[in-house]
């Protein structure tokens, strides 16, 4: 195929993707129209390869008429592959700078927005347990995909990942043996159910749903990287509205509050680890 034809093909594909996303929204209510285009395109094409479908238009037919096919796409679009104590310094800084603040509260509500398969939720539960705070905390862990939440709720992760996670845990200031928190079973480990007694896993869509509570801490790390700038602004407003005064907000380490509409409403708690505090 010539370069010119190749380029026409891409344009056509972009139109088809826009139509698919419009259909997905109007039929099922899931709104990916303001997602960051490069990554969503990759994921759709990846799903198509897995479903052995050649064109986006044919895939649209499948997605709009078959709930199971749609659910598989939803999982494909919502899985972030993360790890426990991803970016250990974030958790270390959280221990040093946020935990002292939380100690002063009688109860603590934490919203983990876009929790995916739960690795970072269990990490936070472990941290809070070690700091003696877990009993007075409730963690609301939300994601758009039911299937992803089911996995998060299970708390089962591959044994092969534990070496890396143990390293992360230690760098994150872990106080015990990491293996104290799980039981190995063949190729998997299951995290102790006590870690999720105060975790509420629930469906929530950052794009279309509103605020549902007021929180002392909101973590939304590496979630908004999938959104375009307009949607990022919307979600920054939603998060601001959902934080109590002096509440803490945590982003991924390549995200920034700079240039967002709420930038001036926060103080930096830590600029490297992207922890902020709502001050006005």
């Amino acid at each position, binding site marked *: *195929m010539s*370069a*010119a034809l*190749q*380029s026409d093909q*891409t344009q056509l594909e972009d139109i088809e993707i826009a139509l698919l996303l419009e259909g997905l929204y109007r039929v099922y209510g899931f709104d990916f129209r303001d997602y*960051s*285009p*490069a*990554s969503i*395109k*990759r*994921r759709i094409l990846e799903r198509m390869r897995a479903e052995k479908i050649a064109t986006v238009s044919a895939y649209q037919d499948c997605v709009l008429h078959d709930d199971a096919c749609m659910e598989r796409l939803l999982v494909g679009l919502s*899985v*972030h*592959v*993360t790890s426990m104590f*991803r970016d250990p310094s974030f958790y270390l800084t959280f221990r040093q700078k946020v935990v002292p603040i939380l100690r002063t509260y009688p109860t603590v509500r934490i919203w983990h927005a876009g929790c995916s398969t739960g690795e970072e939720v269990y990490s936070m539960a472990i941290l809070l347990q070690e700091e003696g705070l877990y009993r007075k905390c409730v963690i609301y862990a939300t994601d758009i995909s039911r299937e992803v939440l089911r996995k998060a709720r299970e708390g089962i992760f591959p044994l092969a990942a534990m070496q*890396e996670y143990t390293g992360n845990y230690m760098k994150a200031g872990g106080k015990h043996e990491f293996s104290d928190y799980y039981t190995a079973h063949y190729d998997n480990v299951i995290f102790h159910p006590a870690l999720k007694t105060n975790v509420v896993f629930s469906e929530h869509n950052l794009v279309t749903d509103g605020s549902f509570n007021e929180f002392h801490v909101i973590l939304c790390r*590496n979630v*908004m*990287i*999938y959104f375009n*700038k307009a949607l*990022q602004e919307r979600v920054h407003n939603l998060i601001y509205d959902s934080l109590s005064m002096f509440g803490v907000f945590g982003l*991924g*380490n*390549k*995200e*920034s509050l700079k240039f967002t509409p709420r930038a001036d409403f926060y103080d930096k708690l830590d600029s490297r680890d992207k922890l902020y505090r709502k001050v006005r």
Partner: protein
Amino acid sequence: MAFEIVVVGTSYGGLAALQVVLPALAPDFGLPVVVVQHRGKDTDNLCEFLQRHCALPLAEPNDKEAIAPGRVYLAPRDYHLLIERDGFALSTEAPVGYARPSVNVLFESAADIYQGHVVGVILTGANADGARGLAKIKAYGGLCVVEDPAGAESRGMPQAAIAATKVDAILPLREIAPFLNQLCQHEPGSSYAS
């Protein structure tokens, strides 16, 4: 053909190779240079290290950061780096071919946006990442440069790239930066809009 961006992919041996290529880029190099170096999760200081070997400003981009000419961008550890119309986008999708960042992900997204205006460069590496991405750059009419496998620290990636597509130049490591400088000189002030 006016070029608008240079994308570079490398893996094993890449750190030494980048220390040869980056310092030899002209101080007035007129295009953005985006580099994926496969790296472990414990490589926080790679950026500072490479900056010491590079006259152009070098940084790991933040999400949605605009792409500026005359700068070198290094894909941050544990993220894919993608090109979009108005800047960079990061992603924590699953590793591709065990790699995150993945060379293919960067190259394919660059071809999608800049089409025939991309220069793709594959340096030393022990796997096959980048071959598919380079083939896509070529299919869109971009320019493909590969380090000569004969002299490469690890020949896997260059060989896979050469097998995947008809590359435009196979060069010894030391000749790659001069080649890029020359390309760039012929294209003063080119921009995406042109």
